[in-house]
Every structure is written in structure tokens, then in C-alpha cells.
């Protein structure tokens, strides 16, 4: 029996903002909290909530520190995060293909 592509979707990743965070963090080696907030157009509180979900799932690592007097929060994708993003993109592509096949 063929497994439906929706079974490959992960609840943690299959969410627009969290997918966006992973996509941005994948492209940049490390990404700062403020860059994510402005790029994704989120409030600090909203972004923090999504980051907590991803961190608890082990998909990102959060590093807090200072550059001069300025506090900085850096986000980096973990190996699990890279794999989760790859799997999610593959599942989405597969799902789109299936939906298009069914539509014809």
C-alpha cells in the first residue's frame, strides 16, 4: 500500500512561520533574532513562541551572547532541523504532484 504524502508532514515543521524560520536558517549559516523578526514580519513574542517549539523539537539551536554592549540571539539549524526541512519540502512536492495528478 502506498503511503500518502501527508503522512510525511511533521506537525512542528508544517506551519508557515516555522517552515519560514527553517528555510531562512538553512540558507544563512547563522541567523539573528532581529533579522528573522523583520524578514518574517513577526512580533518578538510571536517569533519567540515559534522558536521555542522548534528548539524543544531539537530542530534549532539558540545561542545568546553579546557583541559589544548589544545583546544578540543567534539561531542555527541542527542536523535534525536540516533533515526535517528536507523531508518537509520533499513531502510538499510529493503532495502537490499527487493533487495535480488527481485533478487531471
Amino acid at each position, binding site marked *: 500500500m502506498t503511503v500518502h504524502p*501527508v*503522512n510525511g*508532514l*511533521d*506537525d512542528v515543521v*508544517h506551519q*508557515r512561520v516555522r*517552515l*519560514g524560520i527553517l*528555510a*531562512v536558517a*538553512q*540558507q*544563512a*549559516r*547563522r*541567523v*539573528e*533574532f*532581529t*533579522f*528573522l523578526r523583520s*524578514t*518574517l514580519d513577526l512580533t518578538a513574542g510571536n517569533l519567540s513562541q515559534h522558536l521555542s517549539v522548534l528548539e524543544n523539537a531539537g530542530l534549532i539551536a539558540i545561542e545568546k551572547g553579546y*557583541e559589544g554592549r548589544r545583546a544578540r540571539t543567534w539561531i542555527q539549524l541542527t542536523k535534525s532541523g536540516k533533515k526535517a526541512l528536507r523531508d518537509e*519540502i520533499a513531502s*510538499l*512536492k510529493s*503532495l*502537490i504532484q499527487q*493533487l495535480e495528478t488527481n*485533478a487531471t
Partner: protein
Amino acid sequence: MTTEPAPTSGEPQSLLATAHELTRQVRREQRGAWFPLLVFAVVTFAATPFVRYGHRHPTHCTSVQGGYVCSSYSALALWYWPVALLLAYLPISWFYLIRSRQRGMGTRIQPYIVLGVVLVGLTTAWALWAAAHPAFLAGTLHVGSGAQPTDVLYRIASPAGAIGLALLLLARIERSWALATITAAYLIVVVAAFDVGRLTHPSPWAFLPHLLIDGGVLLVGGAVLALIQRAQGPSAA
């Protein structure tokens, strides 16, 4: 297994499009290749006095078509290139580091710097070896018969070739077709301009057109990239 409701047909496309758009946006923000191009243009132009006034060592003469062709090298230029190219990677690294801090995102620039430094080492080793074995060089160079495969190889193994090959990797890292195109044009010019004023021209300034063309392509390429990034908005400049 997901507990989300079954997706509508628009949702996966929309999610995928969002992820791709964000990736493209970050790539645009990360691009800064105009700076290395301008740095290497300056390095190329600055080579002029070292090549012109560096003490020339005639090394080997061969008889060609009733005359003689002598190979020679400038000791000063031989040392200028590795030092200048290695020093060039310092401001380039600094530029990407500062940008990374200012914008709040990293760039995977290390492979470019490492490859650049390795290529400088290889081309320097080759230049030193060629200077020590002039008979080999004179025996494999072709005069007046157009560029031969060995000539192309020698040009690629030059400092200009080292700059171009490393820039190809930078184009791959930045996923920039514009930089890839400029670099390809630069490498073609580096290889094709092989016979410009070379060997058969007795002038001590015979090298100059070559340097001006190489440096000119880098300068124009850097300016074009800077304009493209400026046109894409202040955040991408």
C-alpha cells in the same frame, strides 16, 4: 503522522512558494561579490609597476622563424602576486564578516577564502617552478600559431586564473548567475588575451594591455554587480 486537517490544494503550493521566496530573499541579502571583484581589480592594476620595473631575468632563448624568442620573468612580480592576492583575502573576509554582523545573518564564505588561498599557493609554486625550469616553458609555449592547449593551461595557472577559479566557487556559494556570467567572461578574456603583446613584442610595456583588460573586466563586473544590488533595494545593496 500529522493531526492537521487534510490540506487544500492551495496550501502546499503556498507553503513551498513561501519557503522558496524566503530562501531567494536571504540569498539576495547575502550577495556581496562586487567587493571581491573591485578588490581584485585594484590588485591587478597595482601590479603594473611591479611587472614593469621589477628586475627582469632573461632565462632561456630559442630560435624561432629566423629570430630568437627569450623568456624572462620579473622577480618583483613573481613575489607581488602571491603577497597581494593573500592580502586581498583579508579585506574580503573582513567585508563579509562585518556585513554578516550588521545584517544579522551568516554567509558560507569560508570555502571561497580557503580555495582562493590554496589556488594562490598552487599558482605560486607553479610560477617558481617555471622560473627555475625555463627550458621546459620555452619548449612548450607556441609563438604565432594561436593559443594552444598548453598556453590555455598556463593562463589558467596564472594569478588571474586563480582569481577567476575562486570566483566561480563564490558564484556557486552566492547562487548568482550574474557573478557566474561575469566570471566566465573574465576567464575567457584571461585565456583569449594570451597573445596580446606577448613575447613577440619587444616593448617593456607589452604586459600592460593584458593587465588593463583583466583588471577592466573585474572593475566593470564589480560595478555592474553593485548597481544590480543597489537596484534591488537598500537592504540588498
